[in-house]
């Protein structure tokens, strides 16, 4: 991937407290700290650059909102992706709408960029009757079939091999479709990371592996997750083309993804992309990171904020104004606040829905269980109060 225009080796990995990278491999970067003036790399339009910036802001606003709702007890749980916005937006912007997405719980920004309805997203946060997943999953487990955004499992790593299966199916059918999957540094240790890379290495199916290395799996730092300094090397162990990208540089992420997707479309096989970033927030609303990491480290990474970096880049390019900035944030806030207030007013899913979608058709034993429930308990005053989960 040496040909990415504007890319350069960076010392960032050496400065970053939470980072291994002793051997200092090339980290693809476009937005460089030392750059005084910038150029848009070929193939990236000003329009897309701005759309990516706006996309990252929307994710940030959504996270701020859901955390607030969770803190005030209005929703039971939430996941945020503070600091990882570029890994979501830079990738999805470089893919096509027909490409399939197998995300983990931390990539709803990918769906947002594809324009899913915020009302549906908010409904899912509340698990209410409008939730497309009918209130069955904890918040952050979105499903948007119309956007090829596949249902999310809490089980770490299982989606990775499924994405390969989808790529193999597209290959079999001769469809011009790329399958992309996202997972964390923790997930690289899972069974299905291994099965997925094995299958991809052999099948040469059109699949992109986005390893969002945010350097933590809950409390476990990446140095204890793997004996490797640079996780992108994992891909090499399967004969899969592999690159390492500054995951807080949305333009570099975009470029690397574009190139990988092209390879895949040309039948040149899978690419493994390590997107090096940092989980700036807590693992989830149940987690307290002060137990296991230092303020200095968090502060360092705050200084590498992907939105701030893109802002400077746009400024250098002359694509930014105060008015634009204000409008973008306010617009995002308005829409998201509206969606969540609406969602709060929506009622729970009906009890009967418990029995739907276990099978294509309701089998007799489930019909009987449903009928018994409705007959015997619908006059009981039961509610969903209780503790919140991890």
């Amino acid at each position, binding site marked *: 991937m040496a040909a990415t225009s504007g890319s350069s080796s960076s010392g960032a990995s050496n400065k970053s407290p939470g980072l291994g990278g002793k051997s200092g491999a090339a980290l693809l970067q476009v937005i460089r700290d030392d750059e005084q003036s910038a150029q848009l790399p070929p193939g990236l339009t000003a329009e897309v650059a701005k759309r990516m910036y706006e996309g990252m802001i929307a994710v940030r606003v959504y996270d701020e909102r859901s955390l607030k709702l969770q803190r005030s007890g209005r929703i039971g749980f939430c996941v945020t992706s503070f600091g990882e916005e570029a890994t979501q937006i830079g990738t999805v912007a470089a893919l096509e709408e027909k490409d399939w997405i197998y995300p983990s719980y931390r990539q709803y920004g990918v769906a947002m960029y594809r324009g899913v309805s915020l009302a549906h997203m908010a409904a899912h946060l509340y698990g209410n009757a409008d939730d*497309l997943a009918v209130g069955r999953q904890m918040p952050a*487990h979105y499903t948007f079939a119309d956007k090829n955004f596949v*249902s999310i499992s809490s089980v770490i790593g299982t989606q990775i*091999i499924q994405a390969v299966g989808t790529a193999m*199916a597209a290959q079999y059918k001769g469809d011009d479709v790329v399958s992309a999957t996202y997972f964390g540094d923790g997930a690289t240790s899972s069974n299905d990371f291994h*099965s997925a890379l094995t299958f991809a290495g052999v099948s040469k199916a059109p699949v992109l592996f986005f390893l969002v290395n945010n350097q933590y799996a809950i409390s476990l730092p990446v140095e204890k997750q793997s004996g490797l300094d640079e996780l992108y090397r994992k891909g090499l162990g399967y004969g899969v083309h592999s690159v390492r990208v500054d995951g807080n540089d949305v333009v570099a992420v975009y470029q690397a993804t574009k190139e990988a997707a092209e390879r895949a479309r040309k039948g040149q096989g899978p690419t493994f992309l390590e997107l090096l970033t940092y989980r700036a927030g807590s693992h989830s609303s149940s987690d307290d990171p002060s137990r296991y990491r230092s303020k200095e480290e968090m502060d360092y990474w705050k200084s590498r904020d992907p939105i701030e970096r893109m802002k400077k880049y746009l400024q250098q390019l002359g694509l930014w104004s105060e008015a634009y900035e204000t409008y973008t944030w306010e617009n995002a806030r308005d829409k998201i606040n509206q969606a969540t207030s609406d969602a709060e007013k929506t009622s729970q899913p009906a009890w009967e829905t418990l029995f739907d979608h276990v*099978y*294509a058709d309701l089998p007799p034993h489930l019909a009987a269980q449903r009928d018994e429930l409705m007959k015997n308990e619908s006059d009981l005053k039961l509610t969903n109060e209780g503790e919140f989960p991890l």
Partner: protein
Amino acid sequence: MATQTSTSASSPTQQMTLIQAITDALRTEMRRNPDVVVLGEDVGINGGVFRATEGLQKEFGAKRVMDTPLTESGIVGAAIGMAVYGLKPVPEIQFSDFIYPAFDQIVSELAKFRYRSGGQFKCPLVIRTPYGGGIRGGLYHSQSPEAYFCHTPGLYVVIPSTPYDAKGLLSAAIRSDDPVIFMEPKKIYRAIKGEVPTGEYTVPLGKARVAKEGSDLSIFCYGAMVDVCQKAAERAQEDGINAEIIDLRTLYPVDEESILESVKKTGRALIVYEAPKTCGYGAEIAALIAEKAVDSLEAPVMRVGGFDTPFPYTLEYIYMPHPARVYRAITELAAYQ
């Protein structure tokens, strides 16, 4: 009600072993639907270690009959991704003893995909896997893990006992819109022959079959145990005991109606299965009867299962339920006052 019916065409038939019927079902459904693909270890050039996929790669090519790396989790996980995209994969797990590396994909993913996505996604596919003892396979080539899957909502669990049902049920499973665990009694792969229509037909999922009508007691069984029970029942018939044998065929969701109907008629129930007795599939049938037909019962609900030990090698003939053991249970049950 238990049924013998099927959507069988009045096509010509041919004498087949159970495994030939399975190959024939795969071939027939692959000819019928180009989205049906087969994948697994050694299923291609080698035709499967039991030869269930013999000839398929030759006819349909290596892109449709795929030899995979040695990872069951990968096989099932990839098949799920294919099914989500719209193919109809039929992965083979070489022995059901080796399905456990794929347990997470089956229980966490395959079974829950439709539910967790509110019906937006689904992944209907058929996992074929030979199961059970009787081939001197010892601990790791003999297990009967059906109970695990029957405790996993979202799955169908199907086990044939005759060549006719093997083809018809597998065809139905491949056409189903739900994921199916299709377990094949390898002990009788070649031991049992029968007439099988050479054309397309299905045997409906969810319906048991009366393998033998009787009035004195009801035996519930499936797979290789049907033949064992039949032999035992024949022997008992000589003593004047007229046992009914219900071949469950679809274990989950089970044909409750047929079970209860039979028990209400006979008042006595025996369940026979190979897996370790405790918490085995037979427990559910016994519990069902104890819950819904207790007033008809004239005797304890009996179970003949495997012992609660791992599966042995040299002594498998004494581990597995055999006709003499089932016969003894029948006579005891019939004699109970």
